[in-house]
């Protein structure tokens, strides 16, 4: 039993830290978000160059097939840096889903582009009626001679702006609400009948809203498998989101500590006020617990359920991160509610991470065995 970071974990975190040190400050971050796709194209290429983009992919796909521990180390570092490039959504979700489900010929066509960062695919699964229930899909697929015809609405596709293609879930059967009959289809961003409308998420990133009006895709663009593909892909992506959230929490907690130590009010440093101290301690406890739950997900052994452990960590972190963010804002007083500090930007990212792809309660229900 060894809690120290492995060489690989240290290296990944170091790479991410260096990337942040070189490329990030609050003003540059603002500029990255302002780009059309909601992040920096230049940073994206840098991340690809230094290998961080491909790293989570399978070795056969040109990646390093990172272990969960390495994912945690990497994404916690990206979180601390408030990095806006959508590695989790584009690589851990999009690329991995495509490569896991695509037939060989299709996978071959994408493998290199995804590993090099030259191409991006985005998962289009969320729908207005879905809420926490992944199996609620109203988008319809109809197989015909010319291919498969897709019609429906996918209202929230993060990292969707500028994506080369979307992985759209659709249902073949009528009226069913179960997992049966659902499949994922690769839809090119320029497919006729596809309308892409960008919108801004709370953290400033860009999602898109898709309307599919009889979009036709070749049958070969159907991924093998159905919703189970999500079960296969999502736990690691969720672990990355959880780790990123812990990184963000750590960042804004540390900045608040520093502020409390230096800022005086009524002639006393804010950090000397006992009521504030005790609340900071409560958040410190929550942060340590969050980290512990990330660690717990890394414990191996056959009897462990990785997906459940991750769901538990996500549920816990979603709740405590929101409260932590609220207090870090509060302790900064007026400045905390402005757009000027990392505190607010970090908090907005925490709001998103806590509520995407589902609300905290849905995560808890998954952990508690109340939801699939």
């Amino acid at each position, binding site marked *: 039993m060894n809690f120290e970071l492995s060489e690989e974990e240290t290296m990944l975190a170091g790479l991410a830290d260096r990337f942040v040190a070189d490329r990030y400050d609050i003003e540059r971050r603002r500029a990255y978000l302002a780009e059309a796709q909601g992040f920096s194209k230049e940073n994206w290429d840098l991340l690809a160059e230094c290998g961080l983009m491909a790293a989570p992919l399978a070795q056969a796909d040109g990646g390093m097939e990172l272990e969960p521990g390495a994912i945690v180390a990497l994404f916690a570092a990206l979180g601390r840096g408030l990095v806006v490039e959508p590695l989790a959504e584009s690589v851990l979700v999009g690329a991995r889903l495509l490569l896991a489900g695509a037939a060989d010929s299709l996978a071959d066509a994408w493998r290199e582009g995804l590993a090099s960062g030259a191409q991006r695919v985005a998962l289009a699964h*969320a729908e*207005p*009626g*879905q*809420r*926490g*229930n992944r199996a*609620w899909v109203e988008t319809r697929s109809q197989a015909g001679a010319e291919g498969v015809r897709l019609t429906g609405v996918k*209202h*929230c596709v993060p990292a969707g702006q500028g994506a080369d293609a979307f992985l759209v879930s659709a249902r073949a059967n009528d009226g069913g*609400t179960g997992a049966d009959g659902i499949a994922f289809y690769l839809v090119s961003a320029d497919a006729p009948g596809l309308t892409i*409308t960008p*919108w*801004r*998420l*709370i*953290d*400033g990133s860009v999602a898109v*809203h898709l309307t599919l009006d009889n979009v036709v895709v070749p049958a070969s663009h159907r991924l093998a498998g159905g919703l189970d593909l999500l079960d296969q892909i999502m736990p690691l992506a969720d672990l990355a989101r959880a780790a990123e959230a812990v990184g963000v929490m750590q960042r804004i907690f540390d900045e608040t500590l520093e502020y409390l130590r230096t*800022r005086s*009010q*009524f002639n006393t440093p804010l950090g000397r*006020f006992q*009521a*504030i101290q005790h609340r900071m301690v409560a958040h410190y406890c929550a942060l340590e617990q969050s980290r512990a739950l990330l660690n717990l997900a890394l414990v191996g052994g056959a009897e462990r359920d990785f997906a459940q452990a991750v769901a538990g960590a996500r549920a816990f972190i979603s709740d405590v991160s929101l409260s932590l963010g*609220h207090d870090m*804002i*509060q302790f900064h*007083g*007026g400045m*905390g*509610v*402005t*757009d*000027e500090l990392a505190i*607010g930007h970090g*908090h*907005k990212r925490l*709001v*998103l991470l806590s*509520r*995407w*792809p*589902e*609300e905290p*309660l849905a995560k808890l229900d998954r952990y508690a065995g109340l939801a699939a």
Partner: protein
Amino acid sequence: MDLDLSPQDLAFRDEVRAFLAENLTAEIRDGAAATPSVFVEPEIGQAWNAVLHRKGWLAYQWPREYGGTGWSPVQRYIFEKECAEAGAPNLTVLGLKLVAPVIYAFGTPEQKAHYLPRILSGEDYWCQGFSEPASGSDLASLQCRAVRVSDERGERYVVNGSKIWTTHAHWANRMFCLARTDASAHKNAGISFLLVDMNQPGISVRPILTLAGDHEVNQVFLEDVEVPVSDRVGAEGDGWKLAKFLLENERGGSCHAPKLAYDLRRIEADATAQPDGHGGTMAGNAEWRRRVARIRLGVESLEMIELKILSEIAHGQKPGPQTSLVKLLASNLRQDIDLLAMDLLGVAGLELERQRPLYGAQAPQAVHGLPSQVAAARYLNSRAWTIFGGTNEVQAGIIAKTVLHL
């Protein structure tokens, strides 16, 4: 105890209701609904002010001699409650509820005659210059200096310094402000209450955007700004006393609960159209209803607390530290409700549209509908509730000291 409204009060309520049905235009109401910031912008707020002014109800909190209505505290509450339930915008308090009482309580006859009518007519739009970058919750540490000079152009103060968190300074033509007129005096002493013309060269206004991207507050820089001595309210050095009066007045006799209840009811109504992921709606989701129920109990309790304070005021008592309790509860509930509204919308609630305004012809196209355009911004902006007007921590300190005697 007899907690029912009297027949007269019920009749008054019906009168207000009828007036609102007639005069609160869809434009004003929709503008308020599409405003995620704490205060509505003058475009909406001043339009509503004008409607009330025409009716003679604008200055309902002022003494009758300055244009007040002579309503009882309970009637004032009924009026505010009906306005909230009709979806009227909050009145812009800066002129009406903050500086006006200081002027009619402490001003000279000339100040009263000049300023009060201009607040009612909307000619003057006020902002407040209390907080400073270095002072935070600790007002007494303010550093803005006013030096008195007297020359051929008359007696005046020359003011230098900077004010922060100045709501609507970018719209205002007047600012009431605290400045240190006696640098040698200690802390609370040596501060004066000045009325500043914002339309003069030494004033510059830097926007401070909120977390949600709203431009509501500012930092105001004063560089050799001139204030005629006749625009000082009260005696020199009385500023602290007047500010305390103003803040207590601000905290006294509030009407938060009806607006919170109105927002909560709208969220509940929206829940009936919000899918729950299983073919039903959120209105039927047990966990959701429990969460709403807990918040509703908070709002209902707050309304009774507000009514009790009003009843005490009506019996001649001064609003005491109970108003800190109200501020605390109302701020927490406001935040709970705005988070609830965002959460109701699920993933679509995570939209943060930054373009403004969200009403009228220039409003951006809605991807998910107006509620999504407003919800996240409102959630973010309402984090300020536990900070402005005395943070929750300051309110708790006041209660601990003055109520609990700890």
